């Protein structure tokens, strides 16, 4: 009987869990979320002049082929090719269809429909055994695709021509190029090589006709290189780029024609058709953040006045890398050009001469490497109120005696301000917001849902993005700074030193990067709300920092310092004024370094520091025997609400919550067990290995999430050919060693580790846990799937204590090896996200809600409520009904009271 009941309850609870997946109603699409699609840094571009709807066809460094609308810059279509070198786009051509050659070994030739990007054809071109994979050039001419393979052992170029649509080989022959270097370019029907002695040699691939040019003295020498020049005309043009300048060379009737003067190397050059068979050269150059454009006729060197123009925008432009232009003749014989520019900070700019910038695309956002969600400051009125209660600031701020008179005055002013704002909102219902634009909008809301996304990109450009609209609020290009590399990924140290909660001090962020030209480290401190530098701004440190550490205490200005360890073992505090404060706390500061190559982990303490000098002394050392491929600590923002877990027999199993626990992954190639994945849980204060686990035949992709007292990791199992998820959970036991605080140094017996593995029938690109303000809400795990969806899995499904037998515990569902993939749990519904790099989660002011920002090639922002929005009224909450009911009830109460009184009176008279 009871068994029957339990079974029913189990089924119901299971169904309920499924139901609690978070689906969106159709009318809620785009309400809390937005998606932005990117293409990456421009590599090839073709301005389309023939179609009705004007488009720009582009191919990018991110292996994306796309068409952009000329009017708005929006994506008309986009095709994302294979990741990495297999999808690297080698060549693009567009006339009746877009033709791309990609890959690096077998080359894949694809044709795309101009209007919608549908694939027309696809074929492979394999290399012969003697042909190198690099140094293969491609060119297209009249329906034929030419593959030029440079066989440098024989100084011979092998030319193979294909029918572009079918892939059928039409002809193959070799051309001898005596004395050629590796600097060759295929352009039009010509193969052009620059020899080491500065001689330019050209050969027509169709009929092997040679032509030569002895280029001028200044472009001679080994430092020069051949550069391609984008041309929207039939005239093949290329440039010889040297240190300072570049020389343009056109190929006409099997001869070279060099331009009389050279162009600065940082200028963008493009060639376009002009009247009566002449050609225009359009030059664009960045001077003091303004783009200056001028042009001249290629054949006559005559400048064209019409083209001359300059463009500027609110944020300064950086140097131009490539440009492409298309000029047309108006009825009044004046020339106007459309110019597509790509800059070193990965922006794509489209402008029209004699007019303005049409649009810009911030393609650096396709390569975000680090993100923080920063609280917005409070509005001026609230700031005034806060000031009123902040007694400490009083004498400094106003200068009036801080007695009751001063307090009274401040209260009066703040209340006047409040009154004013009330009147303003009443008079012009929301108009004031419109008037002042963005600036007014950027204030904190009551639920802490409005934040600013501060993103650091791999190119060294910073962005401030409004999380509700997805608009870029500010941008800043740190030209001199570049990123570090760690485990083959670009990284920067990015910390929030002070949040916006500490009025009147502005919020402050800290970025540590590398100086481009030298080995030194660079620091940029800035206000995340507007991107403006604070203090020294961008500056070089004069040493190479090997480790950085955000300190856990604040100074009297609520600023958290950053501790930097240089390559010589010296310690520095940033800002330097905090050195004394750090030596006060020195006893409690521990940090560690890890060398991914050698697997060496070293722990340091500052305990041996004196007041004058900070010293880091080594206290522990762990030598892992393999390469470290991942390292995951817990989020410093995380709070654990529940310290234990109630078991079936009503006893409590206490969680092992060690904030200093770090999960370290190593991967090894093993001759017997193939790929071996080991995970070590290391207490980085005491340097003890708390637990370690090994998986054999486990390969990439490997992802790990570490939170509270559990670790969830995924790997691809080579043995069973599927993605598996491992879950570990750590418990102290039935008693808690220390109820108030955790100490790594005060050691205790090693924790009890529960473990379980599951199967996820999908490929995984990224993984992250949700986080909320107080940690009361249950945790979910967000998994970026390679199909482009973001799956939300309740942690309950990954609980290692899911029982196989009949042991019942509260909130534990029976074990099932395969995890479900319900479509309702895909939080980005049909908004496919390509190449998800990472998922960033941040708590909001509401305990129920977690803000999620997903980045990769596309950006996606949304919010999730793992335990449903228990602290907010529903969207479609019927205010009218509840008001009506309340009013009705009070009326009824009043009426019945009167009626009862009358009845009582009547009865009294009887």
């Amino acid at each position, binding site marked *: 009987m009871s068994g029957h009941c339990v079974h029913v309850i189990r089924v119901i609870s299971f169904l309920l869990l499924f139901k609690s997946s978070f689906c969106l109603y159709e009318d809620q699409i785009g309400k809390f979320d937005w998606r932005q699609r990117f293409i990456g840094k421009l590599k090839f571009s073709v301005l389309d002049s023939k179609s009705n709807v004007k488009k720009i066809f582009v191919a990018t460094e991110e292996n994306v082929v796309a068409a952009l609308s000329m009017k708005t810059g929006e994506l008309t279509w986009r095709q994302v090719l294979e990741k990495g070198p297999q999808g690297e786009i080698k060549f693009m051509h567009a006339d009746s269809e877009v033709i791309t050659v990609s890959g690096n070994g077998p080359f894949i030739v694809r044709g795309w429909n101009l209007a919608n990007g549908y694939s027309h054809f696809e074929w492979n071109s394999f290399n012969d055994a003697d042909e190198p994979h690099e140094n293969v050039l491609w060119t297209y001419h009249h329906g034929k695709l030419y593959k030029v393979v440079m066989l440098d052992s024989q100084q011979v170029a092998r030319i193979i021509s294909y029918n572009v649509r079918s892939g059928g080989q039409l002809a193959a022959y070799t051309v001898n190029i005596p004395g050629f270097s590796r600097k060759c370019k295929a352009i039009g029907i010509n193969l052009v090589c620059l020899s080491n002695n500065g001689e330019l040699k050209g050969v027509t691939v169709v009929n092997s006709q040679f032509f030569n040019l002895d280029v001028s003295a200044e472009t001679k020498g080994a430092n020069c290189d051949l550069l391609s020049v984008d041309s929207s005309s039939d005239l093949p043009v290329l440039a010889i780029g040297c240190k300072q300048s570049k020389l343009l060379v056109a190929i006409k009737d099997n001869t070279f024609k060099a331009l009389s003067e050279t162009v600065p190397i940082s200028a963008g050059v493009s060639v376009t058709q002009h009247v009566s068979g002449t050609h225009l050269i359009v030059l664009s150059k960045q001077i003091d953040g303004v783009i200056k454009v001028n042009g001249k006729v290629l054949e006559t060197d005559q400048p064209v006045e019409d083209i001359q123009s300059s463009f500027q925008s609110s944020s300064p432009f950086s140097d131009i890398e490539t440009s492409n232009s298309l000029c047309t003749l108006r009825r009044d014989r004046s020339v106007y050009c459309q110019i597509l520019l790509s800059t070193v900070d990965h922006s794509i700019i489209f402008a029209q001469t004699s007019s303005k910038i049409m649009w810009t695309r911030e393609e650096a956002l396709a390569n975000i490497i680090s993100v923080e969600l920063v609280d917005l400051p409070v509005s001026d009125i609230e700031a005034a109120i806060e000031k009123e209660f902040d007694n400490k600031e009083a004498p400094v701020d106003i200068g009036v005696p801080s007695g009751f008179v001063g307090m009274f005055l401040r209260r009066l002013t703040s209340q006047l301000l409040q009154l004013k704002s009330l009147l303003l909102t009443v008079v012009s219902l929301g108009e004031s917001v419109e008037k002042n634009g963005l600036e007014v909008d950027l204030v904190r809301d009551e639920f802490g849902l409005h934040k600013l996304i501060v993103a650091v990109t791999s190119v060294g450009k910073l962005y401030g993005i409004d999380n509700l609209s997805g608009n870029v609020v500010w941008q800043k290009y740190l030209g001199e700074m570049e990123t570090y590399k760690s485990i083959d990924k670009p990284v920067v140290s990015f910390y929030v030193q002070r949040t916006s909660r500490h009025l009147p001090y502005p919020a402050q962020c800290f970025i540590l990067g590398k100086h481009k030209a030298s080995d030194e480290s660079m620091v940029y401190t800035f206000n995340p709300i507007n991107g403006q530098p604070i203090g020294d701004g961008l500056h070089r440190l004069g040493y190479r920092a090997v*480790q950085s*550490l955000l300190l856990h205490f604040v100074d009297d200005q609520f600023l958290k310092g950053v501790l930097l360890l240089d390559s010589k073992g010296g310690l520095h505090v940033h800002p330097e004024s905090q050195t004394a404060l750090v030596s006060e706390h020195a006893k409690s*500061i521990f940090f560690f370094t890890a060398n991914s190559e050698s697997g060496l982990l070293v722990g340091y303490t500052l305990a041996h520091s004196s007041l004058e000098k900070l010293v880091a002394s080594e*206290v522990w050392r762990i030598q892992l*025997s393999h390469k470290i491929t991942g390292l995951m600590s817990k989020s410093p923002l995380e709070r654990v609400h529940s310290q234990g877990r109630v078991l079936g027999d009503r006893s409590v199993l206490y969680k092992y919550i060690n904030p200093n626990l770090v999960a370290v992954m190593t991967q090894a190639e093993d001759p017997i067990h193939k790929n071996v994945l080991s*995970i070590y849980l290391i207490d980085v204060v005491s340097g003890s290995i708390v637990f370690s686990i090994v998986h054999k035949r486990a390969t990439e992709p490997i992802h790990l999430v570490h939170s509270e007292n559990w670790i969830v990791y995924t790997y691809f199992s080579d043995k069973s050919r599927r993605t598996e998820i491992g879950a570990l959970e750590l418990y102290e036991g039935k008693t808690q060693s220390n109820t108030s605080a955790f100490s790594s140094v*005060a050691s205790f017996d090693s924790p009890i580790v529960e*473990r379980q593995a599951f199967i996820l029938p999908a490929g995984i690109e990224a993984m992250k846990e949700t986080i909320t303000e107080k940690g009361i809400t249950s945790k979910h795990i967000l998994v970026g799937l390679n199909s482009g969806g973001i799956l939300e899995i309740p942690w309950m499904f990954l609980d*290692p204590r899911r029982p196989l037998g009949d042991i019942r515990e509260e909130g534990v569902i029976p074990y099932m*090896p395969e995890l479900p993939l319900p479509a309702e749990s895909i939080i980005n519904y049909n908004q496919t996200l390509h190449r998800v790099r990472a998922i960033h989660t941040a708590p909001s002011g509401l305990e129920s809600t977690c803000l999620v920002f997903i980045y990769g090639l596309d950006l996606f922002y949304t919010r999730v409520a793992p335990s449903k929005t228990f602290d907010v009224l529903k969207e479609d909450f019927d205010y009218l009904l509840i008001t009506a009911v309340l009013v009705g009830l009070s009326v009824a109460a009043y009426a019945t009271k009167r009626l009862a009184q009358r009845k009582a009176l009547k009865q009294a008279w009887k």
Partner: protein
Amino acid sequence: MFNSVMNREKCIFVTLFSYLFIIGFVQCSESDYDGPMSITLYHALNLDSEPHWESRGHMTVQNAASGYVTSHQSPLDVESTRRLKVLSDKDSFYRLKAVVKTSQGREVNFLTFVKACALVESQLKDYLTVSVDHEGSVVGVSQSTALSSCASAATEKLPSNFLTTVEFKPIEQGPVPDTASYIQKLEREREARERGETKDNRSFLAKYWMYIIPIVLFVVLSGASNPEGAGPAR
């Protein structure tokens, strides 16, 4: 209500730079931990940041799997005992270096530490945990003491000998999805259901009498208590 965990020792780690301390280690492919290995212990009893290593003892591990260890530790002399007490009074660290020498002669250094006061209060009773990876290589040596925290109780006399227990902590095998027992469970459930279905051929009333009787009783009772229903009978 439990609140967030406060931690005394904080270590906020954020970034890892791969070029750190490049030490060219040549990893032997064959396991060189199969044979006996030796662990030489050094400790530092000075207060400065640079440790001054002094020999503490020597251990020979015949076989890591069996955990059979022979150890020889030199007794602490009076001067060392005094310095250890100074360390303890200053709330400083007792640092230990373990040099692991494999049967093939490869040497690896490990460092570990405990609070000196904890060691003193434990009467020099300590544990050495040697973590071993899947190939049998030692990856870490960490020391812990019998009493984990300092009660700041005055210790008059210290024994002159360390009482050390060496533990080997092998890496554990990762879990694999337990499909076999899940299928078994499903089988069992199916069988139980089939058995249940064949046996349970009682009538509707026989099966659900425990639900029907209370409902009938409830209806009857509520009908009896109703005066209007009972009226005509009177």
